[in-house]
C-alpha cells in the first residue's frame, strides 16, 4: 500500500475512493454525534457554554510572572499570564540546557577518562529518572533544605539564596538619570529586600527542566560530533589547522547538520515538559487552566484554549528550528 515509485497500483481504484468516502463519512458522523451529545449533556446539567467566560473576572490570582495579577482581572488575562510564565521558564531553560548539554556531550568524547566517566554517569543517571521525580526533589531541596529568609545564603555580593527564593541585583531606572542604577538586595531582619527575586517554584522548574533535557542534548551533541567522518578531522590536521580551527571550520559545521533537527525536538519536549510546573504550583499555562477549570467549571473552553496555545507554541518552535536547520544544511550534499 505504499506510494513508492515504479510499482504499479494494485486493486480497483474505485474501491479506494469508496473506502475513503466511507472512512470520512464515518468519522464525520462520529464527530457530529459526539458534539450533539456533549451539547445535550451540558444543557441537561444547566451549564452554559461559550467563550464569553474569558471576559469575566478570573476569581484566582496569579502569584508571579510578567503579568502577575489579582483575582479581579479578566480570565483571558490570567491565561495570558500563564502563557507568559511558560515562555518565561522555557526560554532561559532552552539556553541553559543547550550550554550544559553541549559541555557534557563534548565531555563524553573527551580523551580525559575522568571527564568521560563523569559525563557518562550524569547522562545515565538523569536520563533514567522521570522528570517529575527530579522536579519534586529539587522543589523539596529548595523549600526545606535552604535556610530561612531571615538568614539567607550569601552566594555573592547582592546574591541571596533562601527558602523565599533567589534575590539578585537588578538595574533600576530613575527619573533624571541616563543610566540605570544597580539595585542590590539587602538581607533585612525578616527577609531580603531590593533587587529582583525569583521564587523557589520557578527555580525548581528551571533547574529540573534544564538538567533533565541537558542529558538528552548531550547524547544528541555526542552523536552529531561522532557522525563527522574521521577523515575530515585527519585531513584538516594534515592541512595544518589548529585544534580550535578544526572545530570551528570542519567539525562543528558538519556536526550541526546532524544535531539541529534532534535539538529542535528536544526544545519542543522542553516546552511541553514545562507543564509539570503544575505539580509544584508554578503558575504556568497548565496550572492556570487547572485552576480556571475548577473555578468556572467550563472544562471544554479552558482545555481548548490550552491545547490551542500549546499547538501554537510547538509550531513556533518547530518553525524557528526549521529556519536554523535550513541555514545549517545550506551546503550539505
Amino acid at each position: 500500500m505504499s506510494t513508492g515509485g515504479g510499482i504499479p497500483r494494485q486493486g480497483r481504484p474505485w474501491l479506494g475512493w469508496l473506502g475513503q468516502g466511507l472512512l470520512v463519512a464515518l468519522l464525520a458522523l462520529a464527530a457530529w454525534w459526539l458534539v450533539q451529545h456533549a451539547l445535550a449533556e451540558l444543557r441537561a446539567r444547566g451549564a452554559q457554554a461559550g467563550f464569553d467566560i474569558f471576559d469575566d473576572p478570573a476569581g484566582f490570582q496569579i502569584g508571579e510572572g510578567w503579568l502577575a495579577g489579582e483575582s479581579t482581572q479578566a480570565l483571558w488575562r490570567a491565561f495570558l499570564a500563564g502563557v507568559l510564565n511558560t515562555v518565561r521558564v522555557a526560554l532561559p531553560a532552552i539556553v541553559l540546557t543547550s550550554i550544559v548539554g553541549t559541555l557534557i556531550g563534548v565531555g563524553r568524547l573527551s580523551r580525559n577518562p575522568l571527564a568521560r566517566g563523569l559525563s557518562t554517569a550524569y547522562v545515565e543517571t538523569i536520563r533514567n529518572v522521570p522528570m517529575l521525580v527530579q522536579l519534586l526533589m529539587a522543589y523539596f531541596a529548595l523549600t526545606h533544605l535552604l535556610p530561612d529568609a531571615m538568614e539567607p545564603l550569601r552566594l555573592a555580593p547582592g546574591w541571596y539564596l533562601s527558602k523565599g527564593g533567589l534575590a539578585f541585583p537588578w538595574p533600576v531606572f530613575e527619573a533624571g538619570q541616563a543610566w540605570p542604577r544597580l539595585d542590590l538586595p539587602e538581607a533585612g531582619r525578616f527577609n531580603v529586600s531590593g533587587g529582583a527575586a525569583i521564587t523557589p517554584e520557578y527555580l525548581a522548574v528551571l533547574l529540573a527542566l534544564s538538567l533533565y533535557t541537558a542529558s538528552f542534548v548531550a547524547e544528541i551533541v555526542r552523536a552529531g560530533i561522532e557522525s563527522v567522518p574521521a577523515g575530515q578531522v585527519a585531513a584538516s590536521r594534515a592541512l595544518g589547522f589548529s585544534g580550535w580551527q578544526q572545530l570551528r571550520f570542519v567539525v562543528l559545521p558538519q556536526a550541526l547538520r546532524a544535531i539541529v533537527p534532534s535539538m529542535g525536538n528536544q526544545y519542543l519536549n522542553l516546552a511541553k515538559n514545562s507543564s509539570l510546573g503544575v505539580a509544584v504550583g508554578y503558575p504556568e499555562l497548565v496550572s492556570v487552566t487547572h485552576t480556571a477549570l475548577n473555578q468556572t467549571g467550563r472544562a471544554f473552553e479552558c482545555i481548548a484554549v490550552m491545547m490551542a496555545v500549546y499547538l501554537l507554541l510547538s509550531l513556533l518552535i518547530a518553525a524557528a528550528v526549521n529556519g536554523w536547520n535550513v541555514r545549517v544544511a545550506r551546503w550539505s550534499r
Partner: protein
Amino acid sequence: MTAAARHGRPSVISTAFANPTQAVLTLVLAALLAWAASSLWSWAVTHAVWHADAAACDALGGRGACWGVVPEKLRAMLFGRYPPAQQWRAGTATAALLALVGLSAWPRCWRVAVLAPLWLVGLPLVLVLLGGGMAGLQVVPTRDWGGLPLTLLLTIAGLLAAFPLAVLLALARRSSWPAARTLSRIYVELVRGVPLISVLFMASFLLPLLLPASWQADVLLRVFIALALFVAAYLSEVIRGGLQSVPQGQLAAARALGLSRWQQQRLVVLPQALRAVLPSIVNVAIGVLKDTSLVTVVSLYDLTGALQLALGGDPVWRPYYLEGYLFVALVYWAMCFGLSRYGRWMERHWR
C-alpha cells in the same frame, strides 16, 4: 601508525596526564569528585540511620540520611492505598507482570504460539488479582490501586493497547488514500504537539462531560485510554520509520507471489519493519514508563504519588522526603536502566 596503535591501548593514567592541560583538568576534576563523594558518603552512609527509628533520625539534625523511612513506609510507597490485608495480591500481580515482561524479552519466546497465550491468560489474571470479585477475592476499586503495580500495569497495558493503533496510523500515513494520509497526519501532529498532562486533564475532566452518565468509566480506565492514544502517536512515528526502511523489492516480490494486500503487510513488510525498529520501540517503552509518573496529577497514586501519600500526611516522617524520593528514583532508575541495557543488547545481537 601512532604510538598508541602500535603498542595497544594506552593506560588510563597515561591519557589522564598526557599533557599539562589534561593533567590539570584531571586533578581539578578529581579534587571536585573527591570532595563531592566524601560529603555524599558521610551523609548517606557514615552518619546515616538505617533502621526505622524516628527519634534517632531526629537526633541527626540533617547531618546524615534517615534511611529508616524506607523500611518504615515501604508498603505504603510500593502499594499506595491498596488495603494492607490484600497487599499480597498487589505484590503477586507485580511479580506476575515482571515475569510476563521478562519472558517476552527472551528471544526464545518470540513466537506467536508462545506469546499470545502468555499474555491472553496473564494480563486478565493480573487484573483479576488486583481487582478481585472472582475466586473469592475481595473487591478492590480501581481508585485504590497504586504504587509499583499501577506503574507497571499502566506502562504495559498502555503500550499493548497503543500498538495496534500505532500500526494502523503508520500504514495509513503511507497509504495511497489521501484521506487516510491526511487524517493520520493530523492526529499524530495534534497529539505530539500537546503535553501529556493536558491529555490526562482532557481524559479526567472533559470525557465525563462528553459521555452519557450511564457510561461513566472510572478514572483508571479513562487515564489508560488517554495514555494509549497518546503513546500511539509517538509509536506510529517509530513504526513509520521502520516501514520506510523495508526495501521496495520485498513488496513487489510479495505481490508477485500472489499475496493479497493485507497478507503482504502482515507476512512480509510488518515483521521486517518491526524487527528493524525494536530498539526504538524499547526507547518509547522507557519514555512511557517515565511518563506514567504524571498520573499523580490526576489523582492516581502510582509510584511517585504513593510516596506523597505515604509521607505527606505523616508529621513524624515528613522531614525525610528526600530519602523517600531517592528510593523512588532508584526504583525508576533500575527499571529504565535495565530496559536501556536490554535495548542496546538487542541492537547488537538482533540486527
